[in-house]
């Protein structure tokens, strides 16, 4: 198969950036999208041009590195899949394909298609953990967790932190990510002692990072490669409201 590619090129965060056009040939149904870009890059390199920079690592849909907007679709046109899981059989021979990076103020471009998502790490630092010292844990079976609760926590914990939710949201909101992270722990008995503190701090950090507000467009769930449900956003809002109420009585845990 042959394709006409429009690829976003940008030298660094400061520079303007723009689309470059490339023709590519010799692609099969079984090429993954990233393997198609590998072919393009090999071609660019041997002609002395700089290859297209993009993030990727596991290439099996679990590490959350890959992050491309393909023909306007976050992670491409395939549902419930990451860019690295996309195959060229989803495109028609001769098609024009536009490739862009995640676009969000809180995710500045580093180069070409690679962006800086460290804001997500800082949201976790604000409270995305259970404070348990190494070696201090009780026997695992002393904490009973009902199968339904464990399964639901796992549904939230399946988030791969890729940032597709932000890239798909018209407001560049990180609500789905934050909700998945907060609810994974808030659902479990292990997460109860720090529940209010975690909820308030993580939401506060999310706002501080410059992510937009959630106005219920629900584009995030559609773009999420792990189909994380927006129900978690509703649950986060409830957790937040009750945490704020309790926080009024005790101001100590909102600070810091």
């Amino acid at each position, binding site marked *: 198969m042959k394709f006409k590619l429009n690829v976003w090129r940008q030298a660094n965060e400061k520079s303007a950036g723009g689309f470059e056009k490339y023709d590519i040939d010799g692609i*099969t149904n079984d090429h993954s999208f990233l393997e198609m870009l590998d072919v393009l890059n090999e071609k660019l390199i041997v002609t*002395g041009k700089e290859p297209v920079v993009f993030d990727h690592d596991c290439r099996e849909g679990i590490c959350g590195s890959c992050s491309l907007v393909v023909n306007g679709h976050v992670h491409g046109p395939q549902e419930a899949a990451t860019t690295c899981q996309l195959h060229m059989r989803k495109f028609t021979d001769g098609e024009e394909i536009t490739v862009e990076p995640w676009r969000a103020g809180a995710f500045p471009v580093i180069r070409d298609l690679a962006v*800086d998502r460290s804001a997500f790490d800082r949201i976790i630092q604000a409270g995305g953990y259970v404070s348990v010292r190494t070696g201090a844990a009780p026997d695992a079976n002393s904490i009973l967790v009902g199968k339904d609760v464990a399964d639901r926590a796992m549904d939230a914990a399946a988030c791969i932190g890729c940032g597709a939710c932000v890239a798909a949201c018209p407001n560049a909101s990180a609500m789905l990510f934050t909700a998945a992270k907060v609810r994974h722990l808030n659902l479990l008995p292990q997460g109860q002692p720090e529940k209010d503190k975690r909820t308030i701090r993580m939401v506060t950090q999310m706002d501080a990072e410059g992510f937009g507000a959630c106005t219920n467009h629900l584009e995030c769930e559609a773009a999420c490669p792990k189909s994380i449900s927006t129900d978690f956003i509703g649950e986060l809002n409830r957790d937040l409201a009750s945490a704020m109420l309790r926080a009024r009585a005790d101001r100590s845990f909102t600070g810091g």
Partner: protein
Amino acid sequence: MALQSHCPTGPIEQRWEKHRFNLKLVNPANKRKYEVIVVGSGLAGGAAAASLGELGYKVQCFCYQDSPRRAHSIAAQGGINSAKNYQNDGDSVYRLFYDTVKGGDYRARESNVYRLAEVSLNIIDQCAAQGVPFAREYGGLLDNRSFGGAQVSRTFYARGQTGQQLLLGAYSALERQVAAGTVSMHTRHEMLELIVVDGRARGIITRDLSTGKLETHLADAVVLASGGYGNVFFLSTNAMGCNVTATWRAHKKGAFFANPCFTQIHPTCIPVKGDYQSKLTLMSESLRNDGRVWVPMSAADCDKKPGEIAEADRDYFLERRYPAFGNLVPRDVASRAAKVVCDEGRGVGPGGLGVYLDFRDSIARLGKPKIAERYGNLFDMYHHITDENPYEVPMRIYPAVHYTMGGLWVDYNLMSNVPGLFVLGEANFSDHGANRLGASALMQGLADGYFVIPYTLGDYLAQMTPTSTAKDVTKDHVEVKAAKKAVAERLKTLLEIKGKRTVDSFHRELGKLMWDNCGMARSETGLKGVLEKLPALREEFWKNVCIPGSGEAMNQELEKAGRVADFLELGELMCRDALDRNESCGGHFREESATPEGEAKRDDEQYCYVAAWEYGGEKKAPTLHKEPLEFEHVRLSQRSYK
């Protein structure tokens, strides 16, 4: 130089406890004066950095990805072992120890393995307390499954995403310490050199992958947890960035590389489809619990649709050859058996390099919903990649490189022969001998990071004056400056070659040579042949590789080039090690050393040792040091899964 393993003696059940008591402690008020570098944020590095930070040390942690949560541990699917015996099916610490020593084909240290089995109990407690959403039974207790090679159900899992969930647990502990100010996390930073001063590891040189800036980081000890080197084969189930650079640089600075040829080839991967392919995808081993492996009895049937091949014309070769273990034989055995039937011309799919993994019978027995519950995401993944629906047609699988048992040599304290250099997780050689059992790598990474290094590192540091007080090594020290200069020059040389071939083209060529000659079967002729070809390939690389752009910005070709340059050297050492070990053991199969039925034949008389290689220098042969292995508890015997 005689290698000192520093293994404790006495009753095996008491060794770790006794050893821990004898380890020196660092006064709590002094801990923050010690700086520790941790390279890697996977299960081993993430757990270590979090635990050391919590103890009060000043930790600097590095990873090449944009977040510590993306370390390759994230991709582990199947599960993690622990001798909890929650299923009351006869498991115990001793049994896990026994299975691991035997599964490793008697090429690991008993003391280390026993400790691993012992702390496996704490790991599950730790992870459950962190909120890792392990699978549960209806009553709320933890669920288990049995996993390749084990006859008890000791594997804990979180759907098909166990590695992800365990890593997110370690990552959350790590980020908690970042927030507490005890750990500084350096993402998108690659270690390119180890700094050794007066024989001790004192720091590293890194490159900031976003800006290209070279940085010097000094410390009182360096912990490498940089993962395995399976990508020397180009195609493997490892993530694209997995590399040997951190450990190889340390090797060139004096650290011994142990058993480099011990590679694990995983039997259940999606077969190769074309030469543009960039990586291979693992289908979790857990699939073998319910899937049956077969090929046609006759080569003439290979092109038929699988559904058209009658029951009597199918060869369930694992069940036939190994009736006691059937489809659950260890990985090395299953992989070789698949190679044998494909070599006989009975392989299926493109190029005849595949065997069927069939769920027809288990779907009939358990129903599709049950199978979907157990393996849904794996089936979807297979469907995405191959465009075939495994609920309807059998999967096609073929062995692929998956894990490396070899790694830097470490003693019982996980310290290499370079004082102050510790090595954890897949990067060391310690616990799996010549073959790793399924669900044991996650266990080892977390054991090393949470439960071993926090004790053993203190013992080393307690004997040193902190650099922050002694001020004996600074950024202006000659050795430190020389290390940085060497890195800068190497990068400059690479960038100036501006030849005609891409980095990937060299990597592919190297990978093919390694797979053909140092893969599932190895022979003297093949190994000698490749040992002649590799120096020429290396030479061509340094003359003809093309890396556009500069070193002062993000440059992924430059990153890859550095890694491939190191793989080219490592490949040679692997072949040398494979040639030297003229026996078959675990994943290392020498064609010259087989039983009449074609099973691997160990030679304990001559090879019951760890091969630890010392770097010889540019164009000089490495020196082999042998650490003899003794077995007091598990009697040496030929493995049999019949």
